[in-house]
């Protein structure tokens, strides 16, 4: 069991009119890519701000590597806020150096690393340009570089892919995976469920100020499966239906190209093999697959209150 880089325990944050976070607790394992999910206004940004020590919690405690959050921890984090921004009138290179030095890097170190990153993102020519002259996508790249430049063990990225074209999205993903492989923990706050499935090993779902779900992604998806199998076969629908009784329930059956497609719900403790055995004598089985809900489905299911954690 790896150590946790962040332990969030019973965090409460109240604003004048409403409670932004209500008894939120979860853990972020070291080296994970952690998805912080939730609808707009659920409290994600409030939580991220607490982790960044922009604000403090009213109750509860946040620990970074088993230590209560302290100002020095800020340098061990890289934060990319959802609303991006840079000084418009400042030169790109100078600005990047300034922000890197605020994070405790020396000028020489910052320049050296920036040169590498600018080369990697193919924006070396923009070093002396003012931010104003950059396209939105360029600014995003610069901001991403600034976030990760000091190579913090924890990255907190709020919607990191918005504003990028598909090529740059894959470039960023590639870099994130490289950093993960080097041991960086990445906390992603996003609405894009595809990227959650693709990148995240763990998630926490926050809805209406409360944490409603957390854990490893594959566990969660399994937890939300409804024991539905999809099969493709050749043969008669009647013979399929005849073979299904007791714990099996045929949900639908439709012709598809030169074969048939059916979905079957299985109840209780039936092993997958048992279903295959039940079918195999009746029809010619082409494919067999358990339907695991996508994170998107889980998200919608949970947020709509169709399921309880």
């Amino acid at each position, binding site marked *: 069991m790896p150590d946790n880089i962040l332990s969030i325990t019973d965090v409460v944050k109240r604003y*004048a009119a409403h409670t932004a976070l209500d008894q939120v607790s979860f853990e972020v394992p070291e080296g994970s890519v952690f998805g912080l999910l939730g609808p707009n206004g659920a409290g994600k940004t409030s939580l991220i*701000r607490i982790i*960044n*020590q*922009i*604000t*403090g919690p*009213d109750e509860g405690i946040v620990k970074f590597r088993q230590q209560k959050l302290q*100002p020095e921890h*800020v*340098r061990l*984090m890289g*934060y*990319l*806020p959802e*609303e*991006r*921004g*840079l*000084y*418009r*009138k*400042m030169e790109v290179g100078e600005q990047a150096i*300034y*922000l890197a*030095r*605020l*994070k405790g890097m020396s000028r020489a170190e910052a320049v050296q690393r920036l040169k590498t990153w600018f080369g990697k993102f193919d924006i070396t020519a923009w070093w002396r340009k003012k931010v104003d002259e950059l396209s939105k996508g360029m600014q995003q790249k610069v*901001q991403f570089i*600034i*976030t990760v430049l000091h190579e913090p063990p924890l990255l907190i990225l709020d919607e990191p892919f918005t504003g990028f074209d598909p090529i740059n999205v894959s470039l960023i993903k590639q870099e994130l995976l490289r950093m993960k492989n080097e041991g960086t923990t990445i906390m992603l706050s996003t609405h894009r469920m595809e990227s959650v499935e693709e990148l995240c090993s763990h998630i926490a779902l926050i809805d209406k100020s409360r944490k409603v779900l957390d854990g490893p992604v594959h566990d969660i998806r399994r937890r939300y499966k409804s024991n539905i199998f999809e099969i493709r076969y050749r043969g008669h629908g009647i013979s399929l239906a005849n073979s299904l009784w007791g714990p099996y329930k045929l949900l639908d059956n439709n012709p598809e190209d030169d074969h048939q497609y059916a979905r079957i719900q299985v109840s209780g403790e039936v092993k997958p093999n048992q279903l295959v055995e039940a079918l195999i004598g009746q029809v010619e089985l082409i494919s067999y697959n358990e339907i695991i809900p996508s994170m998107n489905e889980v998200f919608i299911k949970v947020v709509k209150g169709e399921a309880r954690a």
Partner: protein
Amino acid sequence: MHNILLILQREYLTRVRKKSFIIMSILGPLLMGGLVAFFIYLSLNQGESMSAIRVVDDSGRLAQQLRDSESVSFEEDTFSIVVAREIFNPDTHYGILYIPADAPENPEGITLYTEKQPNLTVVSLIESRLQLLIEEEKLNRAGIRKSMLDSIKTRVSLVQKPVSTTGEDREFSAGITAGVGFVGGLLIYLFVLLYGVQVMRGVMEEKTNRIVEVLISTVRPFHLMMGKIVGIALVGLTQFLIWVVLTFAVTTVVSAVMVDRSDLTEIQKEQLEKMPQRPGMETGLEKTGEPEILKALSSLNLVKLLLTFVFFFLGGYLLYSAMFAAIGAAVDSETDTQQFMLPVMVPLIFAYVVSTIVMTNPESELGYWFSIIPFTSPVVMMVRMPFDPPLTDLLLSMAALVAGFIFTTWLAARIYRTGILMYGKKVTYRELWKWLFYKE
């Protein structure tokens, strides 16, 4: 601390490198130097454009006694006034002076005909010359010799000195002293306003840019605010220093080129001689020949004045810029600043208004109180400074100012740290009041 320095450095460098800063730094002293040069030029070149005046003298006695000055020459005319007006040529002559036959008894009839609105100095010169001549003639008629009268005439000009027996024996010169103080107060007023608004803009820029969220995930909001305020203060001081040095250089060069000093004194002496009828007029010359303005300036303790200026500039600036920073943090756009700007501006403007009154009466009750209250003291105390206010007043004022800016900074920091992350909310005073009590 390291971060404050970095922030301060950025705020300072980005502003000092701006074109507008460089232009202002050069243009300011050039304007001032140019103004000085312009006045010197005017005073020196009065003589060059001679105004020739035809004199039609029906009295027959005054015209030949009218002496030319370096700016006005008189030509006696033999024509009658009607003909003279008929044949007047504005290209060669400035005007026609008509002296009726009964002028000495009835001077109201003396008339100056000119093409354009006549120049005031020409008019006063002619008036004083004629006045002198007519008076002389009347004295003669009464049997009084001019030399006798001259020996009776006495001119009194008070020497103004402080009552205290300590310190060197200095002389006061109320007018110039007041002027120096007022200019100091005015400069503080302008600098506080100018750079206070820059602080506000800077804060707003960071907020609307959204860079602030990145920044305060790295540095404490208070450090960010203080770095900005102090950085901009240094920009102001730099600008002031450049102005002082450049103005000094420009005026030195200009006055060296345009006139060497002995010339000036020569001309002034001459003017003094020619206007004996006006004892009340400032001539700029004492008997010793040392210009009064230099004497008055040297009587002021310039080092002390400069040091207090820097103190009150910094104190006043810190006091107000903290509030400007809070405004910048509270609003989303420039247009929203108006409602909060007013209450901050009012005491500043009020200080300026009070200082115009205090200038004429530096030891008044009004002057005392407003030079102690921190919101007005930077401007008002500066006005009082050249008049050597009691040390207790000065120290009290300084202490109050320090306490004042610590208080406003504390207040502003609380509004700042909440406001800076608050978007899309129409902020009211009630809201600001609540922010003061938010926990961090």
